[in-house]
């Protein structure tokens, strides 16, 4: 049985939240995502069997890493539920790790102490790195006794050898300043060890593909520029500048000792020195000061390209919603006063996260206090008239027709923080049986929809919900 690696990417890191919507495993370090350095550490240690434990930004991490073939790894995935202890994953099936385990629990960067190739065999022994409070950041062990002890009580396990014996120096990233310093170190003194070559003849300059770089741009090494960037004329880039993917640097700007994250626009003539810029947010890593610059002439988010599929889904959903609203208007106007009069149900105002980052009210059909929805109320639901207020929200552009269940505000804000691509909708995977969704099911449904959404899927969902729901509502409680 081969030694396995378990890489935890799911724990929410407060420092990374300051840096915008990019999940921390995908934050750039030099010209590559942080996660890729973990894969390299696995390769260096001769480990090919890697389990990624996902949580925050799961869909993006999975989309990036795929099956690991790109790195010669065999990647498999597990999911960390919100608030779950990362070590709990190891306890699920301790027998899996009998042959040995390389466990990365927190965002630790593996600095190589010297250049060298991958190990032919996985090193033998117990290697542990702890933070100051004694918590284990990462470990490598082929000792079943040690692993058993660790899994039983992570804090009580014995010490191991330092990773320096394996030519590594793990350093924990726990603040924006440490993230900034790591970038400066990787692009600066360690550039030859970590940076991908890129498209540049200059030493210590890495430029990604599809980068527009006019001849008047001054590039002073070391510099790392990602893919699909546009650098304006007479701009000065470097020394020690990290520019992520899809960035636009306007003319005559001056970038040095800075990190420009993905999808950021830097305005004309600006001087960015000693700062991190992410969209419209300017961060001073030294002081931790964060300034939101609400001025698109200075720094801003590059407008995300609307996926053509989403645009088609939006039009399709809107047209369908209008038709359904027209069909339902008269029955709703007739039946709802009767339902309310006989106390068979009522609409309750809930505060939810809507489209476009807005929070607003949504009317939910609920039983009157102390009663069940029966008779007329069931008929009202079976005709899908309880969806009428939500459908009106689709017509006004506050909701999608098909997508994920709207997330309540503020009680589910932490849930919302885990969902990067959010399509709050009236018709969802669980809208025909909302009461019987397992814990964590809403999150799974939301992430699944974001990952696999399509026009065909929406059509199927709409038909399934509108046709099946009446049967389920009428048969419930019989």
């Amino acid at each position, binding site marked *: 049985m081969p030694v396995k690696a378990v890489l935890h990417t799911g724990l929410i890191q407060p420092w990374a939240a300051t840096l915008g919507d990019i999940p921390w495993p995908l934050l750039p370090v030099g010209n590559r995502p942080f996660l890729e350095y973990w894969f390299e550490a696995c390769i260096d240690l001769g480990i090919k069997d890697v389990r990624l434990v996902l949580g925050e930004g799961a869909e993006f991490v999975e989309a990036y890493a795929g099956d690991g073939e790109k790195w010669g790894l065999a990647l498999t995935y597990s999911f960390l539920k919100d608030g779950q202890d990362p070590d709990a994953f190891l306890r699920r099936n301790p027998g899996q790790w009998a042959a040995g385990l390389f466990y990365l629990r927190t965002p630790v960067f593996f600095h190589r102490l010297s250049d060298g190739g991958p190990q032919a065999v996985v090193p033998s022994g117990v290697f542990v790195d702890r933070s100051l409070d004694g918590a284990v950041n990462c470990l490598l062990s082929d000792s079943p006794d040690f692993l058993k002890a660790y899994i039983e009580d992570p804090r009580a396990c014995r010490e191991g050898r330092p990773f320096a014996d394996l030519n590594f120096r793990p350093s924990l990233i726990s603040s924006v300043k440490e993230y900034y310093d790591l970038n400066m170190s990787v692009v600066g003194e360690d550039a030859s060890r970590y940076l991908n070559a890129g498209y540049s003849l200059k030493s210590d300059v890495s430029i990604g593909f599809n980068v527009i770089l006019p001849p008047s741009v001054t590039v002073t090494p070391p510099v790392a520029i990602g893919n699909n960037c546009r650098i304006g004329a007479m701009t000065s880039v470097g020394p020690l500048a990290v520019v992520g993917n899809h960035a636009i640097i306007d003319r005559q700007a001056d970038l040095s000792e800075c990190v420009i994250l993905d999808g950021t626009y830097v*305005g004309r003539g*600006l*001087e960015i020195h000693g700062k991190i810029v992410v969209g419209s947010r300017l961060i001073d890593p030294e*002081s931790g000061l964060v*300034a939101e610059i*609400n*001025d698109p002439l*200075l720094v801003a988010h590059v407008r995300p390209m609307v996926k053509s599929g989403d645009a088609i889904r939006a039009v399709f959903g809107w047209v369908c919603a209008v038709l359904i609203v027209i069909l339902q208007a008269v029955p709703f106007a007739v039946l709802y006063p009767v339902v309310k009069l006989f106390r068979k149900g009522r609409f309750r105002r809930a505060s939810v996260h809507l489209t476009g980052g807005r929070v607003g009210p949504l009317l939910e059909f609920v039983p009157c206090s102390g009663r069940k929805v029966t008779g007329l109320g069931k008929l009202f639901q079976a005709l899908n008239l309880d969806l009428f207020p939500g459908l009106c929200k689709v017509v006004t552009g506050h909701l999608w027709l098909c997508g994920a269940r709207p997330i309540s505000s503020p009680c589910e804000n932490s849930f919302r923080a885990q969902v990067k691509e959010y399509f709050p909708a009236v018709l969802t995977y669980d809208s025909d049986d909302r009461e019987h969704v397992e814990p964590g099911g809403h999150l799974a449904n939301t992430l699944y929809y974001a990952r696999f959404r399509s026009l065909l899927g929406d059509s199927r969902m709409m038909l399934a919900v509108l046709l099946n729901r009446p049967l389920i509502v009428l048969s419930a409680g019989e």
Partner: protein
Amino acid sequence: MNVQFEQRGTVGVVTPQEDMTADSVDSLKNQFVDWLSRAGGVKNVVVNLSMVEFMDSSGLGTLIALLKRVSERGGDLKIACLPKKVRMVFEITRAYKIFEITDSVDEAVRICP
């Protein structure tokens, strides 16, 4: 926009009470021009930004316009009490190269020629 004007000898102290953005700077500019025409003997101006939490490019443009107007009268315009977030805007736009910035209004008044 609510702006306070104060005269200390030949120095005028201007204190905007709100953020300086595209929505508010026209009002600041008009009030400043009006006050400058009425105030006798004001040569130099200190803009106290202690109450300004955010400034965008329009705000900076207005400060430059005020500087130009004061310079035309043979005076100078200084900035005092720059909050940290506004200081970051000054840094990235290189506005610190245009204006003399002091930590207090008193210091700015003292160094006015």
